[in-house]
Each structure stands twice: as structure tokens, then as C-alpha cells.
């Protein structure tokens, strides 16, 4: 009986989250968006990846410092004929993972169109991470790291190179974006209570925020007054963000 209870406590910690963030993954067809996401959610390369039809949804919970963050991930089709469909999903996204293929120059030169669309349609505080994928194919590289990095800083987005084949850096774009968003929440720029921001509180955060009137479960409740959560930047220590990113 006591072991059951212990398990209960453990799962409680495992399954709730502080924030829910909506992310979109965009970029030209064949740049490896689906593979990147697959590696991020399944921790392995996706064999025989087909063009995405419309959009696909997946989710994963990550940990940033003390905070547990659930990411709602919308993988969009890069093919032109789906543009009108996928654009509808940008609405209110908090983060955009903008993917190009380092071995395909045109996927890089078209980036501004994607960024423009995303900025026009997503959340006003959209955080974008530029991702140069397929870094394992160094010999076929058509876009230099420095060039992409420069483009990123000119356009005010984060940048990282990844390989969804080797798994190199695949977590970084998501962690980078999540961290930047948490900082916006911390600084009060972003309010998770409002719909359409692409961010909302999870049960874990609500329990900390709310008084015992609502979702109150014993000792955890009623400690703090209803008040926007103050995150400590210290909490958001750069988690496993290795590799080159700006």
C-alpha cells in the first residue's frame, strides 16, 4: 500500500507541467522538418520520411531548470501546394522552428518568405530559431555557418545547426526557443493567462499560483497568493545546449 503511494507521488511530478507552449516547424520541403521533430520526440532518426501532408501534431515535455514545459509541436508541410493550409496553423504560435537544409542553397535563400509569414501570423512575441539541418553532410554543404549565423542575427532570430540523422543538437532549437519564451514570461512581456499567446499554464504552475479555492490538493495549495509566476533566471540554466548556437 505504501509503495503505491510513493508511486503516486512520483508520477505526479512526472506528468504535470508548468507551461504549455505552441510551436510550429516550418521551412521548405525536404529540409528535414519531420525528421528533426521525430528525433526530438522519439530520440531516433525517422527512416523513409515522406512529404508531410498538411500538418502533423506531436508533443513532448521538457525540463528547463525547475520548470517542466510541455511543447505542442505542429509539423507543417513544406510543399508549396500546402502553403495556404499550413499558414492557418501559424496562428498564435509562441515559437517557430525555421528549418533549412545546409546542402540546399535555395532552401536558405527562401527563408525570408517563411519568416515574413510567421511574423505576420503567429503570436506577436514569436520566438524564432533558425535551424540549419543535415549538418552530417558537411561535404555537400552549400550554406556556410557564418552566412546563416549572420542572417540570423540580422533578422533577430536564434541559430543552430543540427543533424536529425546523427541527432546532433536536435534538442537545442526547442530548448532555445522555450528558454527565450520563459524569459519573456519572467520579464512580464508575455502573459500566459491570455488566449492566443501560444502559452498557457499547466496544472503544476496553476497549483502554485492559485489559492486553495480551485485546483487545490492539500499541502501544495494556498502557499502563494494568486500572482503571476516570477521565474528566476537562474532556474533557466542553459540545459544541454551544446554545440554552436548564438
Amino acid at each position: 500500500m505504501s509503495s503505491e503511494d510513493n508511486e503516486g507521488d512520483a508520477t505526479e511530478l512526472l506528468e504535470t507541467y508548468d507551461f504549455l507552449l505552441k510551436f510550429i516547424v516550418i521551412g521548405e520541403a525536404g529540409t528535414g522538418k519531420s525528421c528533426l521533430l521525430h528525433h526530438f520526440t522519439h530520440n531516433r532518426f525517422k527512416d523513409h520520411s515522406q512529404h508531410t501532408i498538411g500538418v502533423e501534431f506531436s508533443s513532448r515535455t521538457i525540463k528547463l531548470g525547475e520548470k517542466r514545459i510541455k511543447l505542442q509541436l505542429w509539423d507543417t508541410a513544406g510543399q508549396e501546394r500546402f502553403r495556404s493550409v499550413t499558414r492557418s496553423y501559424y496562428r498564435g504560435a509562441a515559437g517557430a522552428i525555421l528549418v533549412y537544409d545546409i546542402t540546399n542553397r535555395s532552401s536558405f535563400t527562401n527563408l525570408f518568405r517563411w519568416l515574413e509569414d510567421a511574423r505576420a501570423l503567429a503570436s506577436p512575441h514569436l520566438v524564432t530559431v533558425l535551424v540549419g539541418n543535415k549538418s552530417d553532410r558537411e561535404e555537400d554543404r552549400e550554406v556556410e555557418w557564418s552566412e546563416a549565423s549572420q542572417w540570423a542575427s540580422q533578422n533577430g532570430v536564434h541559430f543552430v545547426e543540427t543533424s536529425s540523422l546523427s541527432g546532433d543538437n536536435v534538442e537545442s532549437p526547442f530548448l532555445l526557443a522555450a528558454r527565450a519564451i520563459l524569459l519573456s514570461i519572467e520579464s512580464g512581456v508575455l502573459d500566459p493567462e491570455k488566449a492566443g499567446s501560444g502559452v498557457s499554464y499547466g496544472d503544476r504552475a496553476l497549483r502554485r499560483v492559485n489559492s486553495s479555492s480551485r485546483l487545490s490538493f492539500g499541502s501544495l495549495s494556498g502557499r502563494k497568493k494568486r500572482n503571476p509566476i516570477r521565474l528566476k533566471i537562474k532556474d533557466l540554466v542553459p540545459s544541454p545546449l551544446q554545440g554552436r548556437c548564438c
Partner: protein
Amino acid sequence: MASTSTRSARPPFNSSSPSSSSQANLRNQEDKLKGSTAARNPISVRLHKVLATNYDDPAIREALETLSDLYRNRDDVGKRASEEVGSSQTGGSIAVEKLTVGSGIAARARKNLRRDAEIKLTQSTQQFLKAFKEVDSKLDGLQEHIDAMQSRCDEAQGQLQSTNEECKSLLDRAGGLRSARHAVNDRQFAVDSFIIRFSLTENEINTLQSRDIQVDANFFRTMRKADRIIQDARVLMSGDEGPSKAGVEIISTTSQQLEQGYDKIARWCALEFRQFVRDAQLDVSPLMREAVKWLRNRPELLTDALSVLAQTRQATLLNTFMDALTRGGPGGIPRPIEIHAHDPLRYVGDMLAWVHQAIAGEREFLEALFDVKGEDRMVGSVRIFKESEEEEWIQDLMDKAFEKLRSPLRLRVRQTIRSQESSITTYKVANLLTFYNTTMQRTIGEKAGLSNTLNEISDEAYGVFFDTLEAQARNLARTILPDNQDVQPPATLLDHTQILREIISVYTGSLLGNESMDEKREGFRSVLDLTVDASISMCSSVADARKVQKPTWDKDTFLLNCLDHLLVVLRPHDFADYKVKALQDEIESRADLLASDHYQNIIHEAGLADCLAVCNDKTSNEPLSHIGAMQPRELASHLQAFAQWLSSPDVVRSPRLAHLNDQRLADRVHREALRSLAAAYEKVCVEVRKPENRYEAANTVLGGARPFGSLNALRQIMGVGEGSG
């Protein structure tokens, strides 16, 4: 003594037989002496004897020491002792006194030893006697005491005996009582354990019943306990003795308490469910999950609680949908979806994408609520619906959650579709609806209410689209050709096929690439049939009308051009292959007609028509040279005309067929006509050469003009081969 001290000083390894070695020494010396000359001297023998006397015997030493003590003590301690002795034994004291006199001691001792010893013995014996006498009298007293004690003891023994006999029954009773107490204690313990195991404590009962105590981990612990009690009690009662009264009572009491617990969970859930009013994804606490798990044992309670949830979600989703439509995000960003109502595709697309995202969120929420593990699967990919209880609940709740949202969605989509004038836009919207329908059905299943709505609105969109297409077809049918209409496809047809082209491109754009050939054909068949058939029938009816008005107008070329135009539009698309085939067949048969018509034309133009007619019409036996156009002079002028015609450009290229847009077809038709013409000429030649037709110098008649009766020459001029090639 010396040997002993030497021995102790010696190292241990030499100590093997110390005494024998010292004796050996002595013997050595003895032997030496014996060996000497004086060995037999009696004095020396005596001396030897004295010297060899051994005083080391402890018994002797002890005797000597006792003796010396006896005389040494005369001066001090011994003196006093001898005085005491002397007071009672006068004789003795004299002797002792003599002994104590300094140097004379040894001599006196030697003289009086025996006497002294006897005196001492006597003294001691007297002392013994005196002491024993006393002991004897004391022993007598003791004997008396012992006798008395004996009798007392006997008495006591007797008493004890009787008391024992009396106590025995008491003791028996006490033992009985003691073991009875043991048994009672054991039973008490058993009852206590039983109560602990088979009943809830006051606190626990309160936890289950009270509305003031929260539903928490402790509550569920108590629920588990109550549940276990009932189960254990059932197990107990399933034993040989059958249901016992206690068992029945336990089960009924605890069941009651458990039910109160269930009620409490249900109330709590209903309360909590009312709080699920957020649009975005909802987090499910472990307590909530556990509560739902419990309630699944009481489907009625769960159903009630879930209906609260369904209502809450229904209202919430409706509200947030309406907010997204009309208000947008905080501060109007993102902008309200309705702002794009003028752009039907975007408007409908945004609405459906919103719904799709809400579906994904709701599904995740419900999976968490029912603790269904998300399979290794992207939500967008095809879901295989498992027949499980959870899945039923989830689908039911999904259905209900989106129920209220269906009608505003339907209303808006319907309005959008109906207000479109362009069939292309309508078609695009219809395709978009189909796309979303497929996408969402992967998550909600075909049977979901929302799927119904999506089916309905996409059917309706297609309905409107076909209505528009049909209206267009009707308009097309009302086409009136302008007076100056040539044989080119009319403008209305071009407009119509332009629309068809765009619809085709929408269709090809909507294909996902995994459709079978049949699916691709079927997906477009009705559009194709409607538009192409309407075009064909329009063309033929306007052509007929035109022909009536203006008989010289080249209807055949016109129709072939129209058909060819349609063919050009459809030919690149594999899914239109059957239609292309039908058009090609139609073109073939019309081309055949045209070819024969064309032949009629050119045979007239070439001047052979009359001659051939005479040849063909021949019935009587009258020679042809006597009939009409075949009379030699007439024939000659006809042949002359034919020769002339042969040298005109019309032979190579018919001006009439030049209006056919498909020049290869024109070529084919022309050659066919020429071939027929050649056959006609051949026929004339054959007839002229027949003797019964009575031409004088037939060859001269034929040789008057090109091709001089030579079929080969004619074919060469015409550029047509023999036969049908």
C-alpha cells in the same frame, strides 16, 4: 642444595637429569679415590661414609627443623608456652628450662629428647581429652535440640500434608481460570486484528463521508482499504462455512461507506470538471486521473460527472471558437478569423485549422484523463481505433465537446460557399473541406459528429460547385454564335475550358500522390463528364443551328476544331484518359465523315464527279461512250479539267482543311479523299478501256491529259501511296 641452585641457574637444555649427573660426579670422585692407594684404609672408608651421607632427604630435614624449633623456642615464644605447660606439668617445665640454657641445648636435647617428647605428647593428649569432653557435652545438647526439631518437623510435615491436600482443588481451579484468560486474550487479539482489518476507523469513515475533507492521496488510500475489506470479506465467506453473519454485516457496512466515497469522488469530479474552462490544452492532475479510474467502477457516476465535463468543454470550446472568430487574441492579436471573411479560402482554412488544433488538444487532454498512453505515433498520422472502453469514452466526449461548435462552423462555411460566384473558388473550398475532413477524421474517427458536419459541409460545397458548373453548362448551351463566326471554337467554349483548366489544376493540386489511378479518375469523373459533355453538346447544337442558317458554313471543321480543343485541354492528364479516348473516337468518326465530304468536294472540283456518276449508275447494256459525261468529247474535257485541277495547289493542301486546327488530322482527311479520288479516276480508266464501252482508241482518250491513264503517275502527283497508307 647447591645442586638445586646450580640447576636453576643452568640453561634448560642441560637439565635432562640433574640429580643423576650430580650423583655421577660423586661416583666419579669415588671411583678416583677407589682407584687410589688409600682405598682400603678403614678411616678413610669411615670418612667417606660420613662425607657421603646425604642430608637432603626432606623428611629428615623436616624432622630436624621440628626438633630445632622445639628447643629454640625455649627463649622466647617457646618459653612462655612452656611456662603455661609448666604450670600444669611441673616435670616438664624443668626439662624445658634445661633445654633453654644457651650452648647446652644440644647436649640436653640429646639426653632428654625422648622424655621431652613423651611429656609433650602427654600434655597434648590431656588437652585433647579436655576438649573432647566439652564437645561431648555440647553434642548432647545438640542432640536434644535435634530431637525437638525432628518432632516439630514431623508436626509441620503433617500439617503441610493436610494443607496441600486442601489446596489442590484451589490450584486446579486457578490453573483453569488462567488458561481461560489466555484463550480470552487470544480471542481479544483476534477480534482486534479483525476489526482493524475489516473495518474503517472513525477517521477513515469520516474521510470517505465528509464533504469538508478534501479528495487527496489519503482519501484514495482509504478507498483502497474499504475496497480491500469488502474483497477480503467475500473471500472469507466463500469458505466452507458459507456466509457468516459478521461477513454479511462487514460487507454491507463497508459497501455503504465505499459508496459514499464513490459519491464523494463523483461530486469532486463534477466540481473539478466545471473548472476545465480553458481553450488550450488542459493538464490532468494525478488525483483527477485516479478519481476517473475509480469512477470507472461506477459507470453511472462516471457518466454523470463526464456529462458535466462535456457540458463545460462544449461551452468553453464554443466560446473560445467564437472569440477566435470575432475577437481574436488578447489586444486583437492574432486577429479575429472573421477579418478574412472576404477571402473564402483563408477564412474557411483558418476556421478548420482552429478546430483541428482544438481537436488535437482535446484528444490529448482526454487521453491523459483516461490514462491512455499516447502510442508511438504522431497525432496527424492515421489512428487505428482500438475497441476499448477508454476509446469509447474518449470518442463520446470528443463528440460532445465539439457538438455546439458544429453549427456556427457549418453556418459560416455554408454562407461562404453560397456567396461564391466562381466555381473555381467553390471547388477550392470544397477540396479544402475534404482535406480537413480527412485530416480530422484521423483523430476523431468517421463516426464522430464533427466528421458528419465536415462531410455535410464538404458535400454541400461540392453540391454548390456542381450547381455552379451546371449553371455554367446551361449558359453554355444558350450560346449563340456571332454572325461572323468562323470554324474556330467559339469564345464561350474557350471560356468554359479555361475554367475547366483551372478546376483541373485545383484538382491535381489536391491530390496527395498516394491515390490509385481509379481513385484519381473517379475523383474527377463527374466534373469532367459534366463540363466536357456540356461542351460537346453545345458545340454540336450551335453548329446545327448555324448550318441551317448558313449552309455553306463548314460545320464539320468547326466541330472537329471544338473537339480538338477539348482534347488539347485534357490530354496531359492521366485521370482524364477515358475522356480523351472518347473524344478521340468522336474525332475519328467525324474525320471519316469529313473525309468523305471532302472527297465529294474535290471530285467535283476535279471534274470527275459526273463521269464517275455515269460509271456508277450504269444499268443497261448501253456502252458508256454513249452516255452523258462519258461521251468521248465530254470525257476529254472532264479529263482536261482534272489535269488542270491536278496542277493546282489544292492537290497538296486543301484550303478548306487548312481551317482544321489539327493539321495532321487535315492531312489524313485530305489523303483519304485523294485516295478515293484516285480510285474514282481508276474506275473511269477501267471503264474506258473496257471494249464493251466502245471507245475508239481508249488510250488516246485517256492519254490526252495528265496523268495519261497512269494510276502510278496520279499517285505520284497526289503524293499518296497505294492502299490505305
